[in-house]
């Protein structure tokens, strides 16, 4: 074997045995504080993320009627199929639950965060912090959770608790039998099979364009 060939074989063997190549650590650059602050709009139940500011029920009612009521109604009762934001108390166990901020949402921070990030629909992130505080205060009022003199601020925000905060439980699935509970029946599993419900009775399936 020539020296050249021997060297090639050795090199090949070394390469095959060597650990993964260490690659450059050059992906991404440090994000500036300004860049992060501009995009970091999220708010948590403990108040993390809330900016300084405040807003009254009174101001909130004005803003809501101008920018929100077209879809959500003057008292946040909802228009057409747009979300109902108020009322619905004592409906969660009924066959037509009305899940509103007052009846269902666990945390007020969710309201502030969502209004700030996504509302008004079609003009997101256009309201000032004070306006978002005011709209949030009005939504509390619309749910009979504060009086009409109430002013919501960064300071008193976490003092406000929503009625259904303790209405949530952790996921307890699987909640139906598995193979461990016995092999599923394969034959003669039922004696009498009858049709109990039919989609055609409701007739809510969209028609084809040509129909």
């Amino acid at each position, binding site marked *: 074997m020539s020296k050249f060939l021997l060297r090639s074989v050795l090199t090949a063997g070394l390469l095959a045995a060597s650990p993964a190549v260490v690659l450059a650590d050059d992906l991404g650059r440090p*994000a500036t504080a300004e860049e992060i602050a501009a995009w970091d709009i999220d708010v948590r139940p403990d108040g993390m993320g809330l900016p300084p500011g405040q807003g009254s029920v009174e101001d909130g009612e004005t803003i809501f009627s101008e920018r929100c009521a077209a879809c959500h109604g003057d008292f946040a009762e909802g228009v*057409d199929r747009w979300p109902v934001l108020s009322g619905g108390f004592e409906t969660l166990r009924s066959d037509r639950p009305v899940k509103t901020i007052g009846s269902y949402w666990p945390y007020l921070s969710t309201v502030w965060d969502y209004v700030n990030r996504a509302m008004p629909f079609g003009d997101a992130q256009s309201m000032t912090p004070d306006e978002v505080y005011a709209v949030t205060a009005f939504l509390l009022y619309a749910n009979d959770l504060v009086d009409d003199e109430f002013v919501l601020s960064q300071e008193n925000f976490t003092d406000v608790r929503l009625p259904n905060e303790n209405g949530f439980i952790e*996921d307890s699935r699987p909640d139906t039998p598995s193979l461990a509970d016995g092999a599923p029946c*394969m034959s003669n599993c039922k004696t*009498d099979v009858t049709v109990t*419900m039919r989609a055609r009775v*409701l007739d809510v399936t*969209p028609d*084809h364009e040509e*129909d």
Partner: protein
Amino acid sequence: MSQNDSKSVAVPSRRRFLTGAAALGAGAVVGGTAARASNPENLPPNIPDWSRYLGDGVDARPYGMPSEYEAHVVRRSVPWLTADPVSSVNFTPLHELDGIITPNGLAFERHHGGIAEIDPADHRLIIHGLVEKDLIFTVDEIKRFPRTNRVYFLECAANSGMEWRGAQLNGCQFTHGMIHNVMYTGVMLKDVLAHCGLKPNAKWLLPEGADASAMTRSIPMEKALDDCMIAWKMNGEALRPEQGYPMRLVVPGWEGNMWIKWLRRIEVGDMPWHHREETSKYTDLLANGKARRFTWQMDCKSVITNPSPQAPLTAKGRNVITGLAWSGRGTIQRVDVSMDGGANWQTARLDGPSFDKSAHRFYVDFDWDGRELLLQSRAIDSTGYVQPTKNQLRAVRGENSIYHNNGIQTWLVRSNGEAENVEVSS
């Protein structure tokens, strides 16, 4: 069928069906879903035009589209479901597909502020919070992490949600079409997070979209470090705008709402954020008034896609029953099919690749003598989870859950081949 009955049938394929039923009655065999009348001039012994004259050249279709005879194969919406099409959903035409891959143009859409149209040159991803380095990435920089290719289903947690109170929509496109199954090309989220350096108290992520809803969901770190991806291709080509172009999060086996599209930011924190889509929405109200939250995993589920209300049987004799099965817990180990509403079952033939948290295709080849059928499928996944009946789910949860309805679907196939969404006695 009386005239009144036929009027009440609002199935999309009614005209085609009636043609097929008439042909069935005459003992003739009608081809497939497209039971269009044949033109004898194109059949042997004649020579059709396409065999005589030249067709389009290679420049006619720079981006190829399906045949004009497949124009009916489209995503469709249910207008009464939502207040506005900008924050709405449409449905994958499952009854027109086969195999396990959903074509990109047919993958169902769900967005909350319309489709963001983003120039990748103007897109950035910021990762910040409980990391050693707050970093901002271009799309090209994300693509320089080690790449991987994975096939996963994405199912909306509200898929079949309209069926909690009973059979409602006539067609598997509408009852089960909030699912698609594609191959993603991307990078492992854990590699990108490791590059930023996770602090010891980093327990949760908040990914956020760049669209007008600025969609957010809290994701536990354990999942992020397991199999989540940042993807920019689906089925080999760029993500479609409606699927999050230029990049989206992939959260295998977990509800579709968490797969943040147009991914622009990931904040790392020490507790969940409890944002709107994980409190007001995507929580499962039980009969006792309590609601389950953080119900991320998609349970094992299956549906017969053919025959189904939009795809009636069109011939007696040899036929193929087919459908899809999937599980957010792993692979599908078995699918059973019943033709008599759950009294007797036979095990279907699984065919095609079996990937973790991906759709699986099943078939039952059978001879149909024209008798009425009550078709059901029941999937069992690799963990031994058995797809429950709808009544089993109702017994545990009530009818107000909206989400996570993975109950067994029943199609009534009448002797004329027409199918209807029904429920049967337990």
